[in-house]
């Protein structure tokens, strides 16, 4: 599977995703510069974490209007999938490729800690290798991860099963205490209607080796690899 890791000025999880994809998963991977619009070489694009453009206006706002992001709808329409983690999620929301917005953490502080995620939708190309209700351990590291949508959109997200991950306790309880940033409904990750673009605040690339504290992040990649069928397209839900 051909991965591309997008690099914006200020991105910093790019090298980590690159390392995991090439050294842990042994898949071909290239960096994609933020000015590139030519994406035909890839099956999956990763929008990694970081502070693109310093996040000086709003997290992901400037990157959300960059050439590579403008090329994403066509990439997705052509059968590609997109994974946005942390700043990547913020960028996808700012660009309107995912519903909602990410606001400053409710505690008004940056948070770097481990979290647990309840898999709400195990049918996407990103979560096929999981069971519904499975709990995954993945760390977060962000200052603006409080997910917000209006009530109408939230209802639609639920109806269409677009909520993929919710923060929970290690036992799988979705509680207020398990919510690290005040996200609406403990939402940690959502997909687009087609199920081809996933955004999540946690860092799967930081949970990809047991020496670093766990491998639950790999299930997202294993799902993607398992979803790619012979003709190069993805299994739909």
């Amino acid at each position, binding site marked *: 599977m051909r991965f591309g890791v997008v690099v914006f000025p200020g991105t910093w999880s790019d090298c980590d995703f690159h390392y995991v994809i090439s050294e842990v998963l042994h898949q071909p991977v290239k960096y994609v510069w933020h000015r590139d619009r030519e994406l035909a070489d890839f099956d999956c694009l990763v929008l990694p974490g970081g502070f693109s453009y310093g996040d000086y206006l709003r997290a992901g*706002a400037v990157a959300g209007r960059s050439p590579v992001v403008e090329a994403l709808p066509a990439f997705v329409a052509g059968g590609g999938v997109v994974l946005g983690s942390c700043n990547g999620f913020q960028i996808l929301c700012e660009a309107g490729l995912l519903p909602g917005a990410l606001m400053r953490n409710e505690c008004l502080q940056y948070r770097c800690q481990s979290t647990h995620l309840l898999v709400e939708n195990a049918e996407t190309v990103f979560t096929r290798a999981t069971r519904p209700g499975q709990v995954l351990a993945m760390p977060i590291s962000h200052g603006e991860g409080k997910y917000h949508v209006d009530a109408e959109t939230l209802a639609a997200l639920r109806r269409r099963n677009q909520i993929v991950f919710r923060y929970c306790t290690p036992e799988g309880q979705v509680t207020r205490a398990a919510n690290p940033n005040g996200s609406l409904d403990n939402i940690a990750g959502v997909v687009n209607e087609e199920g081809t673009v996933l955004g999540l605040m946690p860092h799967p690339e930081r949970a990809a080796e047991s020496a670093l504290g766990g491998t639950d992040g790999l299930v997202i990649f294993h799902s993607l690899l398992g979803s790619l069928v012979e003709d190069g397209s993805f299994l739909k839900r």
Partner: protein
Amino acid sequence: MRFRVLVRLKRGILDVQGAAVQRSLAGLGFGDVRELRIGKLVEVDVDEATPAAARARVDEMCRRLLANPILEDYTIEEIEGERLAAREPVR
């Protein structure tokens, strides 16, 4: 021409920062604050032929970048003065 853009969280969206500042003020003895909201101020100087064109341009900037329509409202006001932020500060 110079404009002032005021970007505010939409009504109905909890202004956590504003609430925190209001609490700290209360702690400092300013219990008489009934409400407090925090927003962003963007002062911008644009080169356009007419005031109307300039304002339309600023409006476009707001729609394209300066405000996030899911979270924020904005208002645009024209401002006078020599240079941005060169006005007499209170102190």
